[in-house]
């Protein structure tokens, strides 16, 4: 008789690992199955050029829940987070804006563009902290579900509603606006200068196939504001050793709690019997038995891929078919011989140690979206760049650097006649480097190695359907009790003994860990696994 696991976790990304760690801590026998030769999913560090370690996909961290860091003792398992202190925005006219942790310094910088905005910025910051504090308990608990027939759930939903009303009319209005407005309109309520609005609005489109003027993007902006490091909201950081170090720390915690992790073990399908999930079949043909299976893959891959549409209830399958996983971004990683030199702020100053956003005007970012809408990648994309080697020398040889460029837009579906991604990958990489070169002309001569990831690559290599980095867009109709589909937002699925714990569940994407932890809690509470 083959061994029966209490739980098998499909996918060794950060959420799968968090889920496994919590289940193992509760004494369950847990097996994590990861298809790639290393754990981490989209949170991986890989040395793709000798001496240069890339945070291949996900590159910054902020949303990782402090209670998960504490409960899993991730610092002991090697997690170190280095805060990014600065946001640097170069502009084509030779000017630039850097926002710092130091309020007075930031005020002086912004005042070059607008004296009014310079004073509004701290007020805006306070408001965002208030909204983030309001949201925090929501992302740290399963979604309250007003659609539920379960009285306990309804009680939770009512408490949630009271919390909303308790905000007071002013904050309530702002909160509702935040959920519905576009990032640009929301920011226009506060600011007048484009040099502030365009780069800030960029946070509203990350991983989302929408423009900065599209309704709903203000929420995505908030999603990027509600992270915290050491109690400070809106702070972003880098993991020492690259993003993969986060996954490795979580894997360390999971192993220490007794979980087993197998890499190079892709799951081909679920083992179903009498409509019930009883284990998995590996690509090697090996069959594994488990009392519960929890998938950290995105909802499409889990249900249409592993379970099979024929095994799903019709309504669920239909809802899931409407779930939007539209890839919108790519990634370019560069190994550099030296630091890039920006025309607008020459030299190797501290402005390079934070994140560098290239979003020159509102129109230019919107135009970048226009191209993508019609199936073409942006020729002058929105870029979010970090140079981790400046704060963490362990990721590059002495004096050399790695540069991580998040690129938007890159539509998964290229227009008919526009070629395919494998054929156009390098052209896309060139567009990114050309865009950077407009601000830092010498960059091309510094590049020792380049990795270009298109949505197609993200799907093929990392299992992200359509290359969507969040396992589904963070748009209002697919959040909270609607994520991934109405009625199935509590990590449970219509298939008995199958659970989900990935970013396609509440509270969504980013290196947060909350879906994994909340799923484990739900499973343990039901006595499953």
């Amino acid at each position, binding site marked *: 008789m083959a061994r029966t696991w209490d739980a098998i976790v499909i996918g060794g990304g950060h959420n799968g690992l968090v889920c496994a760690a919590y289940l193992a801590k509760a004494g369950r026998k847990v097996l994590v199955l990861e298809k790639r030769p290393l754990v981490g999913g989209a949170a991986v560090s890989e040395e793709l050029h000798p001496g240069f370690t890339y945070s291949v996909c996900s590159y910054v961290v902020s949303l990782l829940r*402090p209670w998960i860091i*504490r409960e899993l003792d991730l610092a002991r398992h090697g997690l170190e987070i*280095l*805060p990014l202190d600065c946001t640097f925005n170069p502009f084509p006219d030779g000017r630039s804006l850097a926002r710092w942790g130091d309020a007075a310094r930031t005020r002086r910088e912004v005042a070059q563009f607008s004296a009014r905005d310079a004073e509004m910025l701290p007020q805006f910051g306070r408001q965002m*902290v208030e909204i983030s504090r309001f949201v925090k308990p929501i992302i740290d608990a399963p979604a309250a579900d007003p659609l539920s027939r379960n009285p306990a759930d309804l009680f939770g939903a009512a408490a949630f509603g009271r919390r909303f009303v308790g905000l007071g009319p002013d904050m309530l209005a702002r909160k509702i606006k935040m959920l519905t407005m576009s990032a640009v309109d929301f920011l226009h309520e506060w600011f007048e200068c484009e040099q502030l609005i365009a780069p800030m609005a960029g946070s509203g489109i990350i991983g989302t196939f929408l423009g900065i003027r599209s309704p709903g993007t203000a929420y995505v902006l908030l999603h990027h504001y509600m992270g915290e490091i*050491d109690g400070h909201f809106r702070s972003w950081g880098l993991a020492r050793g690259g993003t993969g170090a986060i996954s490795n720390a979580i894997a360390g915690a999971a192993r220490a709690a007794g979980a087993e992790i197998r890499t190079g073990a892709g799951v081909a399908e679920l083992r179903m019997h009498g409509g019930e999930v009883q284990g998995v079949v590996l690509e090697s043909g090996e069959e594994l038995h488990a009392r519960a299976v929890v998938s950290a893959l995105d909802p499409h891959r889990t249900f249409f891929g592993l379970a099979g549409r024929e095994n799903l209830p019709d309504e669920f399958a239909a809802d899931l078919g409407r779930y939007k996983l539209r890839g919108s971004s790519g990634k370019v990683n560069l190994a550099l011989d030296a630091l890039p030199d920006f025309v607008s702020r020459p030299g190797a100053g501290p402005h390079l140690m934070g994140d560098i956003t290239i979003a020159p005007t509102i129109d230019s970012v919107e135009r970048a979206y226009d191209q993508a809408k019609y199936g073409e990648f942006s020729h002058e994309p929105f870029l979010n760049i970090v140079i981790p080697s*400046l*704060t963490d*020398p362990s990721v590059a040889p002495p*004096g050399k650097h790695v540069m991580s460029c998040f690129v938007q837009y890159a539509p998964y579906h290229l227009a008919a006649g526009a070629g395919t991604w494998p054929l156009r990958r390098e052209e896309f990489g060139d567009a990114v480097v050309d865009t950077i070169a407009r601000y830092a002309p010498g960059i091309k001569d510094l590049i020792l190695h380049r990795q270009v990831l298109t949505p197609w690559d993200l799907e093929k290599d990392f299992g992200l359907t359509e290359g969507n980095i969040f396992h589904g867009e963070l748009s209002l109709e697919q959040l909270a009790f609607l994520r991934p589909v109405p009625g199935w937002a509590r990590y449970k699925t219509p298939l008995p003994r199958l659970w989900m714990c990935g970013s396609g569940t509440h509270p969504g994407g980013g290196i947060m860990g909350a879906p994994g932890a909340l799923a484990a809690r739900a499973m343990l509470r039901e006595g499953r696994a």
Partner: protein
Amino acid sequence: MPVPSPFHARTAELCESHRWKDWSGYHAVCHFGDDHLPEYFAIRQAAGLLDVSPLFKYRVEGPDAAVFLARVMARDVRKLKVGRVAYCTWCDEHGKVLDDGTVARLGERRFRVTAADPSFAWLARHARGFAVEIEDESQAVAALAIQGPTSRAVLRDACDADLAGLRFFGATACRLDGVDVVLTRTGYTGDLGYEVWCARTDALTVWDALIAAGRAHGLRPIGLDALDMARVEAGFVLNGVDYWNAQQCLTEAQKSTPLELGLGWTVQLDREPFLGSAALRRERDLGPRRVLAGLEIDWPALEALYERFDLPPSLPLSAWRSGVPVYAGRRQIGRATSGSWSPTLKRNLALATLDARHAAEGARLDFEVTVEYERHNVPARVVATPFFDPARKRS
């Protein structure tokens, strides 16, 4: 009024913040940039360069140098080999700590003592009858600490020392940009790190060479605020903060013994008498009345306390040294004398002197927190120090 240190020409140029403090009569940088955090992270991720010239330095030399130091130090310095450094405490005749510092054996008959407080008069007084010469070289010798995981790589590019052979608490002479320096593998950060000792006249040459070599390794100048955070993580006590030099104390209660400071390991009793040995032997048999211990302050409880005031939790951005009461039940059983949020460990830490009966590892105590001008307690747990102890420190 403080005076400039030998590195002042360089540090003043770089100190954009203009934040300085008085360290033993010298101008010392608190932090160079907007705040100390990038400097703290340099210590833990790359390397930091800190001017430690304000330390007091004494050359102790002569046929009796080892015997003399073994007589005044709680540690048996005679056993120290040439090229080795020892962390030491020294006490008055009642076994009460005067200071802590390092003793480096630079030759068979030559030592260098570093101290936080001026100690020349005290050393000289006890040197009577020993064939030993004591020179206060505090002003003549400049010193830099270079601390952090890439510090070794910086030194490899900057000097000719055999770094692979220089073990933890080792000392060696070497050449650095044409200048003679002494390199010790010591520091106050609990990380991989070194200290460079040179003639005052060579100070700027040494600084420039290290900064130049450090460019490829993320080296940055750091100030005392970053150091203070790192030393709390390392669990190191600070004279004048966590304990007081017995000579400066007004009452017996203000004085401490090495055992009380958790520095019993620097006391070697099984040998001929030394300053304070009789009292220290008695204390060894009876056990100390109070103990300096590590505390971890419960984060969820702190968060919940602030939540009651509808506030997000708030912590000082840098290490604190204000003195905070610690309770067991209703009774105050000690005080926390310094502490810091640890950005590396993600823990809220403190060093506290506690009634020995309540200082066992794991003991649950209460730590006073003032929120909106109201005093409250949150739970804290006694934990072992060093809080942070990376393998690279000794590797």
